[in-house]
């Protein structure tokens, strides 16, 4: 196959992403566990890339967690999502950009359902009108926020202060890209690279000077799936999925993991602590874990944001080894202080997992 042919095929794996004027939909999990992450995204979009993004405080959960665990019926989640579309329409926007992979999957699934069953869309329009007296237009463009960062990855690279390169050795840092299942495994045409070759995160790593690890369990689920972890009896299965991935990636000595799904980032970060306490195993170097970042946090680090300003102290796995490799200066004393310089209290030190400054 010649290059032209490959490029032609690769074109089939692209998706349309709007240039500007985005309606932002926050994520329940991301803003709870990584509160600096969404702030960093909005700041990058507005102040670094000069884009117009609306962050409407009236926006609510999409109820995806409830839907996937059989608590919220399909008609209810569709009406909630219809209300999100109504808020977008009222604000005068047409491009929906959810921060959560679950929400992205939900929006995609609902739009696809309405496409094939217009009668359901009509019913939902009726429900929304009865409940809120609102009407809506469907988004013209639906893109996950990691798609947006991917679209502007080269602009970010131009403005970057740090590269994904080890400043001590000059070698590219080795990153693991972990893509949420609901990004493109359900609707392959809606993700960059489809389900087979998702490039949305590896594209960022390459653009910013790093290298991507292609390990055996690269496309394995992190185990977050709501049904798997919500019931305590199933959590052993849930953590086993992450363990399988960590064991598979460890021999390649990754410097960091980047995820676009808030649940994956949270699980891969916290499970490293759980596994260390249960089995005494750690997966990073010198007793540390493998730092797990959201793509917003990775973008912010590359652009020179202060690690504590974007909330990296909220991570279970210490990010200091990565900051040292990238040559990013940080104040260890400021790690557990708020913006006013007051002490917010340090977490309890784990038994086996090494935490910097504890």
């Amino acid at each position, binding site marked *: 196959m010649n290059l032209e042919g490959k490029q032609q095929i690769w074109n089939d794996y692209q998706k349309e992403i709007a240039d500007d004027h985005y309606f932002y939909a926050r994520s329940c999990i991301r803003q709870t566990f990584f509160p600096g992450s969404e702030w960093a995204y909005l700041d990058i979009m507005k102040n670094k890339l000069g884009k117009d993004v609306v962050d409407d405080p009236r926006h609510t959960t999409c109820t995806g967690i409830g839907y996937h665990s059989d608590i919220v019926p399909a008609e209810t989640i569709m009406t909630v999502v219809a209300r999100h579309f109504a808020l977008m329409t009222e604000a005068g926007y047409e491009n929906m950009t959810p921060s959560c992979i679950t929400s992205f999957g939900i929006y995609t699934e609902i739009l696809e359902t309405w496409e094939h069953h217009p009668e359901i869309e009509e019913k939902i329009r009726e429900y929304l009108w009865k409940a809120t007296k609102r009407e809506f237009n469907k988004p013209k463009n639906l893109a996950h926020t990691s798609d947006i960062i991917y679209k502007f990855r080269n602009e970010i690279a131009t403005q970057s202060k740090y590269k994904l390169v080890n400043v001590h050795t000059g070698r590219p840092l080795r990153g693991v890209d972990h893509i949420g299942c609901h990004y493109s495994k359900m609707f392959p045409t809606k993700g960059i690279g489809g389900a087979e070759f998702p490039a949305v995160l590896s594209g960022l790593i390459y653009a910013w000077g790093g290298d991507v690890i292609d390990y055996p369990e690269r496309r394995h689920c992190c185990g977050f799936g709501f049904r798997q972890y919500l*019931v*305590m*009896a199933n*959590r*052993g*299965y849930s*953590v*086993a999925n992450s*363990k*399988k991935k960590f064991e598979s990636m460890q021999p390649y000595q990754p410097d960091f993991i980047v995820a676009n799904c808030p649940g994956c980032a949270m699980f891969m970060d916290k499970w490293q602590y*759980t*596994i260390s*306490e*249960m*089995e*005494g195993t750690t997966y990073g170097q010198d007793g540390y874990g493998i730092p797990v970042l959201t793509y917003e946090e990775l973008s912010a680090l590359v652009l020179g944001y202060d690690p504590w300003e974007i909330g990296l102290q909220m991570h279970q796995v210490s990010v200091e080894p990565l900051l040292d490799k990238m040559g990013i200066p940080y104040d260890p004393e400021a790690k557990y202080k708020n913006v006013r310089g007051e002490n917010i209290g340090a977490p309890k030190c784990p*038994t086996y997992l090494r935490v910097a400054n504890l």
Partner: protein
Amino acid sequence: MINFWGYSISETRSINYDKNDKAMTEYIAATVPSSKLCIGCGGCTAGCTAGNLTDFNIRKVQMLMKRGETKDAKEQLQKCMLCGKCMLVCPRGVETRKMILEMLNFIKTNQKLED
């Protein structure tokens, strides 16, 4: 090593359906046809008194039985107190108490034959 979470990490394993003994599965399907209606929701386990006091898990028992993992199911069955609360919560109307009794019957009969 500590474990205060109430669960442990599941080990990787494979289930060989061809080699497993399906005699109990077939016996229960014939004597308690409603057992085939189970959707594995776990309501029975959530309401189980024995399950609150021990690691007995009725959903797991019926799953083991259906997979033909009879040995593991046998060990678990001894913990059931036959109170029948699981029947009250089952959304599919599975005769769970009868299912347990028939499983015990099957084991007893086969034990005698083996002896």
